[in-house]
């Protein structure tokens, strides 16, 4: 019977093609509006590390002035970043599975055979080799630098695929050199396409922007005293002893985001105990003169606190859902008009032995075909809308404006299910006719 119903549905769709097209168009527009806003919202708020997001934490230490709480908050909260000396200390203590400092600087980048005039300003991410394993970055060539580079601060670099295209025409550049400012670095790895959305590990303002293209060891930045004051936020409750970079490194200025990956979520309390004891040690040395309110925060908690997730996009989704409901009500009225013209046929089919269930199945299949076509149309329109959005909001990562397979499937399923649901009323109205009254009008 299924094939018979498909045949009847196709005939009916063709017979009432104008109304069918209108219903499909309306469903497509509604689905497109909903899925465009939902996709952006979903991609902005999805868990970037679903397998380990509950055991990767931002370390927050209450390193601030004895006179006043950080930012004078009534409820004391530690800064989101820590000082260089604490970063180095915590790495040295090696209590977590992985340690990922997030620092950086800005430098002029060129190849050794290029003139200084050809150098371009580039933003460099200073971190540790654990960065690549914690955030599961894929490598196209080579690998992350060895542990020894983190310890000694070697001049090694990992670059993105895009940067490798620009500098080395996409060739395997492992072992090649590049110049950052005055310093020569050796390429040890080239990342493959890699997107972490939302990119929670750094400044929350840039959570939806692409990652940087150059990565060097944090210790190298420290050793080479590479500092760019206007690149990132830094806060000092006490001025450094002098204006040198080494004084800044030794100061209480906080600016390094420090992430740790633990073996399991159960180790969280243990690591917090360790942080408390570390702070107590430092208090004995005259530092950390405020109450101990250390925190371990997941990426999601951090972004929520920093209000990186705009509530506007969530409101937009709800508005789009309301718009979809309106579209579906419109489609329902069109389908009702379509089916009103079929009352005589319904009566005839009842007369020759079709049960109500037979007719519900027949017409539900027709509305589901409308839903599927509407869903596919909605999918195409969603892609178009996302493309236009990505062209309008070029500062945001294009990945926010792209659908994964699950979302595409969800689009078609949503369209089909909602069309069938909203089509039920017209169907029951159509099959509710009294055959005896209709059989003279076919």
């Amino acid at each position, binding site marked *: *019977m299924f094939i*018979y119903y498909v045949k009847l549905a196709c*005939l*009916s769709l063709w*017979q009432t093609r104008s109304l069918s097209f209108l219903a499909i168009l309306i469903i497509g527009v509604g689905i497109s509006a909903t899925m465009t806003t939902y996709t952006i919202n979903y991609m902005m708020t999805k868990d970037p590390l679903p397998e380990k997001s509950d055991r990767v934490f931002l370390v927050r230490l209450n390193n601030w002035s004895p006179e006043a709480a950080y930012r004078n908050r009534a409820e004391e909260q530690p800064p989101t970043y820590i000082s260089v000396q604490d970063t180095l200390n915590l790495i040295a203590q090696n209590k977590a599975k992985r340690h990922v400092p997030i620092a950086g600087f800005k430098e002029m980048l060129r190849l050794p055979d290029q003139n200084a005039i050809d150098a371009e300003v580039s933003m460099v991410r200073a971190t540790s080799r654990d960065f690549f394993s914690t955030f599961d970055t894929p490598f196209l060539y080579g690998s992350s630098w060895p542990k020894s580079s983190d310890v000694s601060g070697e001049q090694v670099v990992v670059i993105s695929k895009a940067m490798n295209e620009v500098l080395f025409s996409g060739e395997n550049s492992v072992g090649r050199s590049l110049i950052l400012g005055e310093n020569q670095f050796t390429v040890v790895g080239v990342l493959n396409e890699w997107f972490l959305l939302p990119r929670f590990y750094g400044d929350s303002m840039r959570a939806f922007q692409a990652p940087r293209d150059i990565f060097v060891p944090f210790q190298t930045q420290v050793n080479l005293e590479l500092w760019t004051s206007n690149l990132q936020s830094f806060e000092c409750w006490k001025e450094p002893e002098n204006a040198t970079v080494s004084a800044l490194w030794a100061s209480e200025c906080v600016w390094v985001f420090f992430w740790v990956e633990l073996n399991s979520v159960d180790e969280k309390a243990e690591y917090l105990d360790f942080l408390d004891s570390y702070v107590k040690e430092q208090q004995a040395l005259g530092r950390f003169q405020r109450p101990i309110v250390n925190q371990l925060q997941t990426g999601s908690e951090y972004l929520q606190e920093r209000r990186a997730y705009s509530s506007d996009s969530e409101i937009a989704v709800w508005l789009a859902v309301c718009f979809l409901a309106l579209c579906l009500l419109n489609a329902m009225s069109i389908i009702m008009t379509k089916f009103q013209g079929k009352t*005589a*046929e319904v009566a*005839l*089919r*009842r*007369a*020759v*032995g*079709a*049960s*109500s*269930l*037979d007719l519900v199945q027949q017409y539900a299949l027709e509305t589901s075909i409308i839903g599927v076509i509407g869903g596919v149309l909605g999918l195409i329109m969603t892609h178009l809308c996302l493309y236009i959005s990505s062209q309008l909001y070029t500062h945001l990562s294009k990945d926010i404006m792209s659908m994964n397979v699950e979302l595409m499937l969800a689009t078609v399923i949503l369209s089909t299910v909602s069309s069938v649901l909203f089509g039920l009323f017209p169907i029951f109205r159509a099959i509710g006719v*009294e*055959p*005896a009254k209709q*059989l*003279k*009008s*076919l």
Partner: protein
Amino acid sequence: MLRMNKLAKTYFTDTVKTQALRPFDLEVKQGEFIAVVGPSGSGKTTFLNITGLLEDASGGEYWLDGVDVCTLSDKQKSRLRNEKIGFIFQSFNLIPELNIFDNVEMPLRYRRLSHAERKKRVEYALAQVGLHSRQTHYPSQLSGGQQQRVAIARALAGSPAFLLADEPTGNLDSKMADGVMSLLKEINAAGTTIIMVTHDLEQATQASRIVEVKDGVISEVDRHAQAIA
């Protein structure tokens, strides 16, 4: 085979109660050809609709092939209709976008027969009405008489025990009407019971029994007395 005891039909609106059919008894045996006559609005079609299970009676008993239809569910009635009853309507009631084969096949679809069985039955039914060669035509490509023959083939395809015809020649000219009547008589002669509503007394006299419906009262016409009169 078909037995109606004190069957009645009353329509209710907010303020008006209309007795469409007053309680009546009727028994139809297998192979009979019953003509139902009466003026317009007398209740003929209501009688036919109740007989064909398209409408429920308001009271009384209705037994069809030993089954008390008043106790059946909607689904059971659909099944009984599909297996026991064939309909022929004045306006043919063919689906214009389906070809002749598909129109005739329709009741068999709801009987869940195999494709081969459906094909065999449709071809046989169309051969019975002399339209075997028109299977791929559409209703609009046929004359009125041919369309009614298709409708008869559709009614016959399921091999029903009853054929209910509601003024089957009402939309046909006299020549086509004669052809359809001849066909119905042949079908009846082959053993199918026919109940036919008609305005045409000449056609009614070709039936084995005549039932008159007048002001909702159903009564048998004494053909012998009528002939004498």
